[in-house]
């Protein structure tokens, strides 16, 4: 056991360790780490690649010898800490003792002719030490806790390294979530966790337009219940139960994905009703509301006019090519035709959020003198059910209801967006799964835990995408404790010293001797000052 302790606290071994550790760390910095094999083959000569692999320099920080070095470091630090502990404890638990020879101490100054003890004591108290008598010697000391500096420093380093080793049992993943959607977290983080990104935004400076912050409104759910919510920012993670969610990427411009509509069907409602829109109309003195399914026509009350609902875009935007349905902002618009009693057709685009921009144009005379306004009502739950839009990455699972996840991909190989149907795979909370097809533009009924839903594949879409790093690090608390110990330790060790003074009489003269944990030379300037002060007092 003694040999082990000696080995671990050996200076020579620690020098060798230090040199090896230094070179290994530098190697890790010089050689790109954890790249694909092709990278090394492209950038290094064959013999160099062989050497790098043989020495595990391509992933040096996980190489067996590096782990061995770290293990030695932890053991050595722990041993040194334990060995220094008695010395650090001694001033606190034992009565102070005098050194064998006061004359032999490095610091010594003559104070003058010996005076009465009371006078000496009074003079000594001019120096801010804690004084007491040990026999004939007046003993003073200050900052015994300075000895703890080394202990805390070593203990802090041990704690940090232990915290690092606990990290091996942790997990870390980056998940990408489209705005408004959720992803299930791997089981490694705990059962039943789901992460939802309610809002994804870049906060910009009003004056310069530069990005101030990347922010995701995150909700963490477990078993369907919300357990934590926070606006996660780059330096503001969400922390819950050892889990951390960090903002790492963002694409507010919108990443492309497959766009799906989902509508909850009310009791008794059929798919044909899915996606119906309600229009509030005013024609002269007449007014009313009409609900129309896409492709259908409905009369506007008794006016003789009819409304034909062509199509709905939830993300209407235009450019020189016409209009598209990929506005990153929600901008619902309905394309309609209004047919007058004579059969003349007026075209219209009706905007839900900006009714002042709705347009109904026709050159037909029938419309002259008939002030017609149509407003698109927001989807009402009782009529059409809550409407959700998903923009998903092909093949990636997204949460459709608590405990139920769906993944969609193209049915055949090599098929792209357009007329190709999707294959959807629905994973149930009870472990079951089923597969069904989503033809483009057609509604398909799907029974979910929350009721019956209609899904429709409507092509590609864009949605803001956020990249969140999720991590669970069991050693984090130990790491923080280590940081605190290390900070206190280095400050105490470097800036403080345990100093002792001895006032004694020899040959009719009074002397002051001193010693310091930092060594006599460093105490010298201060010692001279104390000696002068005590001398003055005598």
């Amino acid at each position, binding site marked *: 056991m003694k040999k082990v302790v000696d080995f671990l606290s050996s*200076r020579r071994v620690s020098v060798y360790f230090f040199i090896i550790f230094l070179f290994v760390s530098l190697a890790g910095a010089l050689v790109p780490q954890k790249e694909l094999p092709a990278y090394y083959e492209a950038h290094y000569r064959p013999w160099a690649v062989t050497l790098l692999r043989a020495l595990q320099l391509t992933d040096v920080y996980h190489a067996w010898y590096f782990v061995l070095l770290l293990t030695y470091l932890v053991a050595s630090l722990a041993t040194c800490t334990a060995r220094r502990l008695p010395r650090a404890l001694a001033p606190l638990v034992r009565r102070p003792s005098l050194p064998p020879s006061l004359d032999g101490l490095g610091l010594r100054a003559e104070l003058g002719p010996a005076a009465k003890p009371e006078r000496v004591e009074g003079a000594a108290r001019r120096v801010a030490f804690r004084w007491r008598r040990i026999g004939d010697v007046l003993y003073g000391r200050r900052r015994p806790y300075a000895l703890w500096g080394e202990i805390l420093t070593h203990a802090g380093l041990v704690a940090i390294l232990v915290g690092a080793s606990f990290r091996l049992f942790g997990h870390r993943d980056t998940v990408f979530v489209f705005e408004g959607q959720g992803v299930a977290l791997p089981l490694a983080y705990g059962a039943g966790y789901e992460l939802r990104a309610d809002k994804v935004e870049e906060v910009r400076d009003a004056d310069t337009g530069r990005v101030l912050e990347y922010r995701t409104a995150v909700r963490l759910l477990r078993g369907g219940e919300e357990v934590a919510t926070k606006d996660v920012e*780059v330096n503001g993670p969400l922390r819950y139960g050892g889990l951390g969610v960090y903002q790492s990427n963002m694409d507010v411009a919108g990443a492309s994905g497959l766009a799906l509509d989902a509508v909850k069907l009310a009791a008794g409602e059929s798919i044909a009703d899915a996606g119906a829109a309600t229009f509030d109309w005013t024609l002269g003195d007449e007014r009313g509301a009409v609900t129309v399914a896409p492709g259908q026509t409905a009369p506007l009350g008794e006016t003789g006019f009819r409304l034909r609902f062509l199509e709905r875009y939830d993300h209407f935007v235009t*450019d020189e090519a016409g209009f598209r349905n990929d506005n990153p902002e929600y901008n619902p618009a309905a394309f309609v035709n209004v047919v007058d009693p004579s059969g003349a057709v007026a075209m219209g685009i009706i905007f839900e959020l900006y009714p002042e*921009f709705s347009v109904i144009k026709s050159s037909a005379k029938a419309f002259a003198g008939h002030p017609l306004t149509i407003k698109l009502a927001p989807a009402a739950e009782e009529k059409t059910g809550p409407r959700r839009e998903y923009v998903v990455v092909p093949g990636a699972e997204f949460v459709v209801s608590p405990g139920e996840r769906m993944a969609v991909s193209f049915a055949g190989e090599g098929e792209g967006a357009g007329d190709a149907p999707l294959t959807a795979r629905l994973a149930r909370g009870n472990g079951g799964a089923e597969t069904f097809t989503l033809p483009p533009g057609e509604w398909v009924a799907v029974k979910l835990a929350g009721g019956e839903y209609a899904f429709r594949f409507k092509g590609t879409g864009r949605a803001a995408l956020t990249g969140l790093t999720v991590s669970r690090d069991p050693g984090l608390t130990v790491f923080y404790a280590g940081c605190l110990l*290390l900070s206190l330790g280095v400050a105490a060790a470097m800036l403080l010293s345990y100093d002792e003074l001895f006032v004694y009489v020899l040959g009719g003269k009074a002397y002051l001797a001193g010693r310091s944990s930092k060594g006599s030379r460093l105490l010298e300037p201060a010692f001279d000052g104390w000696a002068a002060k005590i001398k003055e007092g005598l």
Partner: protein
Amino acid sequence: MTTRKVLITIFFTAAVVAAAAGDVPRFGARLALVEEARLGEAFASAAAKAERPMPWPAFANLRYRELKGRGKTREGDLGRDRDATIWLAVLDEEYRTTARLIFVEGGKLPGVPADRWISLRDFDDEIMPALMRAPMAFRDKRVEEEAGRLVARATALDGLSWRGLRLVPGPAAEGWKTLGPERPGWRYVVALNRAYVDGDAAAMREAAGRLARELTAQPGYPAPAKLKLEIYLEKFGVLKVGFFLYILSSLLFFLWAALGKKRLADAGAWAGFAGFFFVTAGLTGRSIVAGYLPTTGMYEYLALFSWASVLVFLLFYLKTRQAFLGTVVMPVAFLLIVLASLFPSTIEGQLIPALQSWWLTIHVTLACLGEGAFAVAFAAAVLYLFRGDKPSKYLPAKDALDVLEYRAIAVGFPLFTIGGLVAGAIWAQKAWSVWWSWDPKETASLVVFLVATAYLHARHVAGWRGRRAAILAALVFVSSVLTLFANLIFGGLHAYGL
């Protein structure tokens, strides 16, 4: 209204220009609307398809942009996009609120009379060179007159036909703001749309003009005091003055080393401190303008490193009244400034999100102060190594240099450990989710920590003194200088903006 002719929606610019033509000083608000609106034949063909009208999508993603001046107009300020029309504000280098709004069209448009527009080529060939080469010409009445002529020509909208408008649909780009119902002037957007539908060019122009006037109000204009400070910092080159004083200080110390007159050393110290004063003023001013301490980018870090080295030297001098350390510290400080000058010194208007944390100040400042102390230790070590054993009137005894070298490391070590490593690791955990990732800068900083630890152990445990300790102390500083290049060469997480 004919729907087949093309009209560039620079009516915004035109509206602003119209306002400008009538009231030039109002453009002193230094605002430019940069907008891209252009329709091609495809719009017309899309209108012919199906039975859908083409409403003016003003509501879609209406964007406009303000330009805040920081000197000459740069390429990035120009809203170029293929052959789109450009509006730009040419800004006075003196940050005068006088601005010239020049409307330029990128290429001719079919059906548009040639004398209504200034082509980009004409602008580039005739006007821009004069403006960029002679910023003082901004004050020249001739330029103002010429700009006025351009403005007048650009405002002539009579006879132009509208076909349709597109106003930058698409995602937010840097510098663009969204105009929505909650912003002032929305009612004019509505009026503009109605006028478009009705085919009323005059009503469109009026609505556009009113909208432009609303948008030219600048709620966030930089405070004049801040702008003035930035101007004077640039004009007087406060940091440059400090740099030259460092050179002077170094020369005086070299003369002292050669001639031995104590007054030269004192003069060198005071020249260095005068330089320190100017560098402090320069860095302080830069901090006020930027809104954060100069702790980002290579230029700022090297300048701060240089400043910290002289600060520690100053503190030592004030305590001991001995200037000999300046022989090494001042040239080091000077060389660090030289290194800094190799990197861009532009003040970043806005920190990237990852750097917006008070940990940045703690981490970088403490690490810098630690390295400054290492620089003083380096000076003591170098003087020790080159000092002979004979008594010298220039330098203290070797023992004293040895003690000084230790004290400097003893001050720098906790600062560097707490600031560079501990604070850095804690911040990395918050920002990157992992407190240590063997990033090149982290690894290089660990090397500094290890070398300094080796020094301290060598002194306390192995009893090293003198030459061996001095070499190790010098290595501490050398390794801390090498950390500066870790990310330059190897990239990594610390390589923001490199």
